[in-house]
């Protein structure tokens, strides 16, 4: 009987490896789930891209849910995500706020005028320090923050129509159900 132990152990191993292949084909292997889901978003005070004198704080955005989309002019994939945002921004039901990450303002503005601006407003985080508090580690990323300032959903990678249908819209709908 104990002669079968190595074989059974291997069957377990093969199962694990098979799972790994399946999992890899449907998930981004480099995506790390955020530890901030269902936790308060960090406090922030960031200038607007178009008007650096105006500073937007977390407190000023409380009361209504909103989407925070992390993007940058140097980010290739953001360029692929952008047409989707241009098409769908109006249909989310919540404002889409842009978060310009580690970018020179001139570059960001040029990029937006070239590709279009779907954002209700754009915050500029030149140094990336505030983004670290959000746990941002690349672009594009998108956060859904509710009326009380709690992060409810994070998308790592670009928003695609499929992701919007299957993940983002249900999350937004759930928020609406809590506080109509």
């Amino acid at each position, binding site marked *: 009987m104990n002669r079968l132990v190595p074989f059974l152990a291997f069957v377990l191993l093969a199962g694990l490896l098979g799972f790994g292949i399946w999992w890899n084909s449907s998930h981004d292997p480099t995506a790390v*789930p955020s530890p901030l889901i269902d936790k308060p978003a960090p406090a922030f005070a960031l200038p607007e891209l178009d008007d650096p004198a105006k500073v937007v704080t977390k407190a000023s955005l409380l009361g209504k849910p909103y989407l925070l989309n992390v993007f940058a002019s140097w980010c290739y994939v953001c360029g692929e995500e952008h047409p989707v945002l241009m098409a769908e921004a109006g249909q989310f039901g919540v404002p889409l706020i842009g978060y310009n990450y580690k970018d020179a303002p001139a570059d960001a503005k040029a990029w937006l005028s070239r590709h279009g601006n779907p954002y209700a407003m754009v915050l500029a985080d030149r140094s990336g320090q505030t983004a670290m508090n*959000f746990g941002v580690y690349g672009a594009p990323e998108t956060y859904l923050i509710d009326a009380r300032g709690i992060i409810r959903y994070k998308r790592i990678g670009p928003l695609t129509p499929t992701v919007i249908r299957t993940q983002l819209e249900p999350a937004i709908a759930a928020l609406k159900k809590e506080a109509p």
Partner: protein
Amino acid sequence: MTRRWLHALLAAFALAMAAAAAAQAIDPLPFRDHAQEVRFQHLTSQLRCMVCQNETLADSNAGLARDMRHKVFQLMQQGKTDAQIKQYLVDRYSDFVLYDPPVQPDTWLLWFGPFLILAAGGIAVALVVRRRSRARTDMAATQPGTADADDNGDDW
């Protein structure tokens, strides 16, 4: 006016170039003394780069890694302990950022598994040795002299 635009453009260009040519992991920081530098090196070598996920924070060329290293340095200057610094990063990036997995219920298999395997193997070896040594004493009892004559000595 034109010059300011030119400077801005050059700065933007430099920034873009800096992003293209990898921001290096070589990053002289103003340490107070060598002991602090060694502590920093030890700490950053236990943290994982979120961007180049197969490198430590100490070795990664990524821009975010540089930011995180500077943050670690800043926290060290503020007097935080290693545990507090690690907790700061875990709060933002999850356990993934630690190359030293914390010992908690979901990593018990990882930390104690090898010792369980060692114990199981040790029992198996003990049983084998016991069986063989019994066979040996049996052989010595029933056929005196053969057991000793039988071994090769230290011959090869």
